[in-house]
């Protein structure tokens, strides 16, 4: 589980800042011509296919992807599970913007461009012309508004229980939505929030066909019609989801005609399926087996950027952890090289600070915050009079966490602390994590659902969030007010370069002045693919996102 | 005679049983009233299943009676709280039918006797001597104390069981068929031992047996039971020489008595009666339970249950048509 689903975005603690000039973002137009080409191709195929159609269907290449689970409910605004809410959603749905995890900036998707008002409070999105949903309903500003109103309007009859989408878009900072003209959709904000473009690429921000909403209402989940690269052909819960390429996709019809998301929860079963060719792509195989898989002819391990971070939260309200020298000592006392080697079998990297190298906000200078220096750590502990202090660390008891816990415990005990670790089931872990009275040190995982530099800041480390108030309790620190201001200022900056630089400084400030978090390691989900497949977006798959529209078979 | 040592009034025992899917009750002991006087031997006889053991145990409240009262030396045992009852218990002892089950196989004889002695307050130091004396009383060697029950024969075990009962210092002993599991050769020894001890210690004895002939020799009074009821109660002489109840007569006839002709007559009479098993305990018949086997049955025997009443012989019997006083068996 990523923390992404547990923590919600702040609800408007953004400070005012001087608005920059309005700017228009105009993407290259190549995608459209590709889409037209695709349409022509599909039409000609349809015309020619009459008697051979079934034959032709069977000739379509099928790509198989492994799912951890599948409930068969694709309601984007509630959390069902990774299988439904992330993997399937990314294949079926698409929103106004897209982040492909190569380019650190948001790219146009269903919106072909956007205008931001001078005060940063109004975002006007121009909808790409000529697009339809999977069910043929045309996409216009009114259709887009329908999907967004469903997040905000509590009386919308199609709104599901426990809808969390608005929180992930910006909560009460989102004032409302307007249809400016046929093809122009507007989002109104209370405070500037430059992160919103990235947020619009989340899987819960996908657009839903108004015709499907009319027909199915709250039951739209099993009958989702969106506008992503693939549309639903058949669903067998707990077994498989069969998808077919959508010829109206804005980037053109995906080359692989059929995509099967097959439930294979067991890593061992995934490995044998990969080896036998029954499975083409998976990101669920543990790091420990990657070297072994890579040696096999039929399988290739893609290089992914490390977007998944493991951090050590230090509760500044708990005993000796209130002393920044102790927190600095702990940060210096973590042997990150050993963690990369022993816990991740080399499939990870030593971090800088909060933002990983592949995101804006990272600067090589941050590497100094992840240096292992046990002697300096011991000296700091001595200075603080905290040698031999007993500390408790809480960790989940699944996945790589127990191994990570043991190495962190070992290296902290090596600098003169006495750390014991409680390995807990998910429920107990969360209960203690979110209670500042119930933990001292705790592991925290953060993956990038969208690689916006703010993805790890305003949802986690601003006053009022569970992260800052309960997990690290850093809201108690005097420097927190300045941190809040810095984050708000960065999110009011709509120039991407300038904004990125502000996040570089935010990382430096929190590390140098506060140190409530020790960055431990950055890793990725190893992406294993068949050798005859190329164009797989490995960076996205390495951090739970599933963009398979670019994949094609070479053989 | 003086006030009775033990008197039971309307004492009855019913057991809940399952008859198919129904819950039912069987009457193991119909409400019974009788008295035991100090120093006497009361014999309780009857065939198997007639309720002798139930009566013997209920008298001591070792089974929980469903109704009635037990007055022991003026105290109502049924009204006592558990603790008070336990304090009284050593004065009422029991000797069991099966000498193989009545001694704890894991304890040495010394331990068995020692803990009873300890329970009745004999100081630890005195217990070994007392135990040896008890062994001598029942005719066993003192070195038996170190052994476990498995090392002894049935007769020896019964002596040990008697010693255990004596160790508690009782006033009343209920001996439940103490000899029926023993070889004929040792039966007499055990009976004589009991008689001697009773006389020597002034005990009151309730002696349960199915052997009317043997009981006649030792009992002062005899209660005859049939189907959970006392059907005849009288002195040993009355019951054995001039039985009033047809069932008592039948029991006497089944004993190896010299009067062969009389026995034959009774047996033939019983055989001539319609063959019937014991009546059902769950659905007891309306009239006299002995009716199905009774050679003297009358019409009203089928409808009116007989109650104990004075017989021509001066005893008590529950019969509408008791045997005539002179023991005439001719029809």
């Amino acid at each position: 589980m990523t923390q992404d689903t547990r923590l919600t975005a702040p609800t408007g603690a953004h400070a005012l800042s001087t608005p920059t000039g309005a700017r228009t973002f105009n993407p290259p137009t190549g995608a459209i011509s590709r889409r037209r080409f695709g349409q022509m191709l599909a039409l000609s195929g349809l015309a020619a296919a009459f008697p051979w159609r079934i034959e032709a269907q069977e000739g379509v290449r099928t790509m198989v992807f492994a799912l951890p689970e599948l409930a068969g409910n694709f309601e984007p605004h509630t959390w069902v599970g990774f299988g439904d809410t992330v993997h399937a959603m990314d294949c079926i749905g698409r929103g106004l913007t897209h982040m492909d995890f190569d380019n650190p900036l948001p790219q146009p998707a269903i919106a072909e461009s956007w205008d931001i008002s001078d005060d940063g409070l109004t975002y006007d999105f121009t909808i790409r012309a000529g697009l339809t949903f999977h069910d043929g309903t045309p996409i216009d500003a009114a259709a887009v508004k329908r999907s967004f109103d469903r997040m905000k309007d509590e009386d919308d009859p199609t709104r599901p229980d426990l809808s969390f989408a608005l929180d992930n878009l910006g909560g009460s900072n989102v004032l409302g939505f307007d249809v400016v003209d046929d093809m122009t959709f507007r989002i109104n904000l209370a405070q500037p929030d430059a992160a919103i473009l990235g947020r619009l690429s989340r899987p819960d921000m996908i657009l839903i066909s108004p015709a499907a909403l009319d027909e199915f209402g709250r039951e739209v989940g099993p009958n989702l019609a969106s506008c992503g690269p693939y549309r639903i052909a058949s669903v067998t819960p707990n077994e498989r989801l069969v998808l077919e390429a959508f010829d109206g996709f804005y980037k053109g019809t995906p080359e692989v005609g059929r995509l099967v998301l097959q439930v294979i929860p067991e890593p061992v079963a995934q490995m044998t399926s990969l080896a036998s060719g029954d499975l083409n792509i998976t990101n669920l195989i543990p790091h420990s087996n990657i070297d072994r898989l890579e040696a096999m002819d039929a399988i290739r391990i893609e290089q992914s950027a490390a977007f998944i971070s493991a951090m050590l939260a230090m509760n500044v309200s708990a005993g000796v952890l209130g002393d920044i020298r102790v927190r600095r000592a702990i940060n210096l006392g973590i042997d990150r090289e050993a963690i990369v080697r022993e816990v991740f079998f080399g499939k990870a990297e030593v971090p800088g600070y909060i933002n990983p190298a592949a995101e804006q906000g990272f600067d090589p200078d941050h590497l100094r915050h992840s240096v292992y220096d046990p002697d300096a750590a011991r000296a700091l502990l001595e200075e603080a009079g905290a040698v031999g202090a007993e500390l408790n660390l809480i960790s989940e008891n699944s996945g790589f966490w127990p191994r990570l816990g043991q190495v962190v415990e070992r290296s902290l005990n090596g600098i003169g602390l006495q750390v014991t670790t409680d390995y807990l089931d998910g429920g107990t872990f969360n209960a203690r994590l979110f209670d500042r009275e119930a933990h001292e040190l705790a592991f925290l995982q953060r993956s990038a659902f969208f690689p916006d530099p703010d993805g790890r800041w305003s949802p986690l480390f601003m006053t009022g969030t569970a992260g800052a108030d309960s997990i690290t309790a850093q809201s108690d620190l005097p420097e927190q007010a300045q941190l809040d201001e810095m984050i708000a200022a960065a999110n009011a900056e709509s120039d991407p370069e300038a904004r990125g630089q502000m996040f570089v400084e935010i990382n430096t400030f929190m590390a140098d002045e506060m140190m409530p978090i020790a960055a431990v390691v950055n890793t990725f989900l190893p992406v294993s693919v068949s050798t005859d497949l190329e164009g797989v977006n490995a960076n996205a798959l390495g951090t739970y996102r599933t963009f398979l529209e670019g994949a094609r078979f070479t053989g | 005679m003086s006030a009775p040592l033990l008197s039971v009034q309307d004492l009855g025992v019913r057991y809940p049983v399952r008859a198919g899917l129904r819950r039912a009750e069987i009457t193991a002991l119909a409400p019974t009233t009788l008295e035991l006087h100090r120093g006497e031997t009361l014999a309780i006889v009857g065939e198997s299943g007639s309720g002798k053991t139930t009566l013997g145990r209920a008298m001591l409240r070792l089974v929980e009676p469903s109704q009635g009262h037990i007055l022991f030396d003026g105290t109502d045992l049924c009204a006592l709280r558990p603790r008070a009852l336990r304090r009284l218990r050593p004065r009422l002892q029991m000797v069991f039918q099966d000498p193989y089950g009545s001694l704890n196989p894991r304890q040495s004889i010394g331990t068995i006797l020692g803990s009873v002695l300890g329970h009745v307050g004999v100081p630890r130091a005195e217990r070994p001597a007392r135990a040896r004396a008890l062994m001598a009383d029942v005719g066993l060697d003192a070195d038996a104390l170190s052994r476990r029950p498995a090392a002894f024969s049935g007769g020896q075990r019964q002596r040990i069981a008697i010693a255990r009962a004596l160790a508690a210092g009782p006033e009343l002993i209920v001996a439940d068929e103490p000899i029926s599991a023993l070889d004929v050769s040792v039966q007499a020894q055990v009976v004589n031992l009991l008689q001697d001890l009773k006389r020597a210690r002034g005990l009151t004895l309730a002696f349960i047996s199915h052997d009317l002939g043997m009981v006649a020799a030792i009992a002062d009074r005899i209660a005859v039971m049939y189907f959970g009821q006392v059907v005849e109660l009288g002195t040993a002489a009355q019951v054995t020489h001039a039985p009033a109840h047809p069932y008592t007569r039948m029991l006497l006839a089944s004993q190896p008595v010299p009067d062969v002709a009389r026995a034959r007559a009774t047996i033939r009479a019983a055989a001539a009666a319609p063959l019937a098993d014991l009546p059902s305990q769950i659905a007891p018949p309306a009239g006299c339970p002995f009716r199905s086997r009774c050679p003297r049955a009358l019409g009203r025997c089928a409808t009116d249950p007989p109650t104990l009443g004075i017989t021509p012989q001066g005893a008590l019997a529950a019969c509408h048509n008791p045997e005539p006083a002179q023991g005439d068996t001719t029809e």
Partner: protein
Amino acid sequence: MTQRTHEDAPQDAAGRPVARWLPGAVLGAVLGVLRALPWAVVTLCIVLAVLAPALAPFNPVASANAPLLPLWSEGHPMGTDSLGRDQLSRLLYGLRPMIFVSLGAVGLALLVGGAYGVVSGVQGGRIDWALMRAVDVFMSFPIILAAILVLAALGPSMLNLTIAVALSQFPIFARLARALAAGEAARDYVLAARAVGYAPLRIMVAEVLPNIVRPLMVQATSVVALAALTAAALSYLGLGVRPPAPDLGFMVREGQELIFLAPEQALLPGLLIAVFALAVSFCGDQLADERTRPGGLT
């Protein structure tokens, strides 16, 4: 007479006598060794677990060398684990939770379940009915789930694991003790004890208990294997001792992830669990056989 001996001798399918090539003495010796084997294995495991601090070449929780050294590496005959800890030392120490927990849990279950069952069997009546229905309810609860709840409530530790496993075994002993005690309570010596005026507790402890202890002990031996497996399963689920302390069940789980890379990481602890459980259950069977054989125990 000759004909007769022929018929008694073993024959092949065609009815011809087969030579008895195994003299009785040899057969007996082989059987004797086979019977002794499980006892030897169990004893060995216990000795290894107890002497682990003396026998283990390395500290089982400290990194001793490079991670994932293969079997028969220099200085590490069983290799090292993914954190570079000596696997032989971890296996030796890892025996301890399984053995101590299984023996401790069975002991605890025997004590508590035995007492519970004796009360139920001797008191009889409504008390018996209520106590046994409670056991029925308890038994209808999945063992592992119940244990997980206990451990979630108490937190993972060797003692709590023991309690959880004991809880899972409690009904076995409660029922057996109840049946045995009820059988004893119907015997006249218990009635005699009541006639003397002994208190119920004394009757249960001094009279009934000594007579049912042996079958309970035999039962205990035969469920140690089950307890060991339950303990291993719970540790596998991460509910056992607190890492980094070694524990066979958790070692299987940690090793399972490496099953392609270094299969011995999961197989060795798994094998140890299986061997111990199997040996213990053979020992239990032998005791149970002796109990039912004429002239045997009880």
